[in-house]
């Protein structure tokens, strides 16, 4: 299947390692799930379906952070499968070993309160980061910049969360004193509602850290020492958020404490997303100026400038025109991303305007010249302005 998705690398030992690892991980997780599925297959299928739907929903939200369409869909599919298999499988073993020795090292009481916070982030963040690193090494052109590290990391995290949610929900179902469904849906509800502030955020941040560490910094030019420092900080942030979530800190405040931690995690994720998108915009802006007409540069300008253009178009025309502008921008993003992926350099020029077919050229003008009005209307308005000034 990977062959058809354009990801097959049969001459790469790393590709084979991941392929075999995904297979073994899948078997191991299947074995862990089998007693639960044997007990209640219908519930198992329903849980997988619901968790899958939530994963799809969260992936959609994560993709909103990929403003400039840097993703490669097939890679996201592979990242999800990878996250759902190898890291989950290895973390299960690591967490069990951690739970076995921790009470003897930190004491029974401390292990009971802090065990999940100490072992969870250590094994899970580590294995997910290694999975992201493997994808970065295997597909250097597909994960070449921080925003791509963010998106691929988030998807590996979503895959991990998918397996974890299915395992936890089914285990809770079987352990519930009253019914399988009651236990499964209780767990599913909590994990699904709070799912966005969990593994996908931690691994997205780790993905950015790895991109920085590997020197895939896009528009940022940092010295190796600075890169190591920034990557370390981001890893610490990823680990710290997971530690905070698993820790008993804030649990005394009940639901409020849990929501506070979730909101904090999402705010951090948003800040990192804005940060890496600014970088991506800078990369594309430089590239687009070199290969296309300067009129399209507004598509790679700041969020505010883009909003201003869209607002002007909406005001002067209608919503449909604004949607067309957005669509044309997306076409530009995809075109440039394709060129970046294929390793093209700015020298390979594109006929200006060729990629903006069907979009009024006026709406694509650069910042500062964001006049989206048709020529006739502009002349008419200008005349009105002159007329108005004469009357003042």
């Amino acid at each position, binding site marked *: 299947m990977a062959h058809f998705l354009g990801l097959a690398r049969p001459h790469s030992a790393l590709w084979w390692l991941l392929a075999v690892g995904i297979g073994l991980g899948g078997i191991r997780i299947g074995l862990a799930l089998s007693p639960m599925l044997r007990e209640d297959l219908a519930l198992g299928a329903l849980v997988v379906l619901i968790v899958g739907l939530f994963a799809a929903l969260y992936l959609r939200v994560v993709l909103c952070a990929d403003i400039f369409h840097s993703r490669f869909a097939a890679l996201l599919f592979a990242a999800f499968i990878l996250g759902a298999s190898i890291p989950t499988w290895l973390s299960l073993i690591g967490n069990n*070993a951690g739970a076995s020795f921790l009470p003897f090292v930190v004491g029974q009481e401390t292990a009971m309160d802090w065990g999940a916070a100490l072992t969870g982030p250590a094994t899970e963040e580590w294995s997910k980061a*290694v999975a992201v690193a493997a994808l970065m090494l295997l597909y250097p052109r597909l994960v070449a910049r921080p925003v791509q590290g963010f998106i691929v990391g988030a998807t590996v995290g979503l895959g991990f969360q998918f397996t974890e949610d299915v395992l936890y929900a089914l285990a809770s179902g079987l352990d519930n004193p*009253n019914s399988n469904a009651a236990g499964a849906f209780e767990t599913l509800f909590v994990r699904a509602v709070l799912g966005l502030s969990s593994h996908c955020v931690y691994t997205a941040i780790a993905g950015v850290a790895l991109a920085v560490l590997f020197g895939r910094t896009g528009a940022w030019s940092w010295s190796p020492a600075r890169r190591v420092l920034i990557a370390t900080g981001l890893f610490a942030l990823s680990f710290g958020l997971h530690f905070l979530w698993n820790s008993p800190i804030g649990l005394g405040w009940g639901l409020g404490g849990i929501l506070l931690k979730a909101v904090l995690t999402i705010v951090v994720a948003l800040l990192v997303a804005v940060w890496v998108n600014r970088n991506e915009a800078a990369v594309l802006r430089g590239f687009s100026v070199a290969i296309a007409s300067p009129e399209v540069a507004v598509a790679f300008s700041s969020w505010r400038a883009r909003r201003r253009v869209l607002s002007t178009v909406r005001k002067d025309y209608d919503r449909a025109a604004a949607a067309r502008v957005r669509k044309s921008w997306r076409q530009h993003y995809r075109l440039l991303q394709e060129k970046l992926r294929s390793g093209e350099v700015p020298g390979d020029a594109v006929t200006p305007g060729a990629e903006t077919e069907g979009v009024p050229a006026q709406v694509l003008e650069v910042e500062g010249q964001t006049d989206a009005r048709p020529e006739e209307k502009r002349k008419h308005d200008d005349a009105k302005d002159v007329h108005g000034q004469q009357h003042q």
Partner: protein
Amino acid sequence: MGRARLGRTAIARGWAQIRDVRAAVIIAVLFALTWVVPASIDAATTKTLPEFTDDRATLEITAGSIEFDAPEGWLQVPGESPSEILLSSPDEKRRLWVSVTEGVEDFERFEQREVAKLNRRGAAALLETDTTEAGEFSGHRCSVILPASQSEGSCLIVGRGDLAVTLVATAKTDSDSAALDVRALGKTLVFNPSDDGEGH
């Protein structure tokens, strides 16, 4: 002979085309660290079980606590929840596991689900039909065999309101002593409601 040489050549040619070997080795090692490190620390940790010194064992739940007479001189095996406890005899041939469950809506159904849970965890448990009174609680006794640890014994599943207590006492088949009497232990069970608890 020639065919073997051809085969070797094909393998050598195929191997020569393989890339990313170093990256694969590094990633494999990094992945392996996920379990090698915790497993190594686990293997290196001296696990001396602490003696359970209290006369009465207490299990904490949201509605209060459950107490029962703890066997004298036994050791406590670390657990994951304050609502359960695992005790082991000093020679580690006998064990007692006690767990409290809250929110039980239908006790009979709970008993069946609890036995199924024990069976899923590798035990062979069978519920008896005679009702047993255990202090403030009542329920049924069951027999249990743990093939993996070559142990056998009995269990007691008793309830009161929406609370249920499960006691499992086992002894290795080669042990000189029999498993603890769960019926006798059950009679020492006491529920202490918390100040803001409903009292069940």
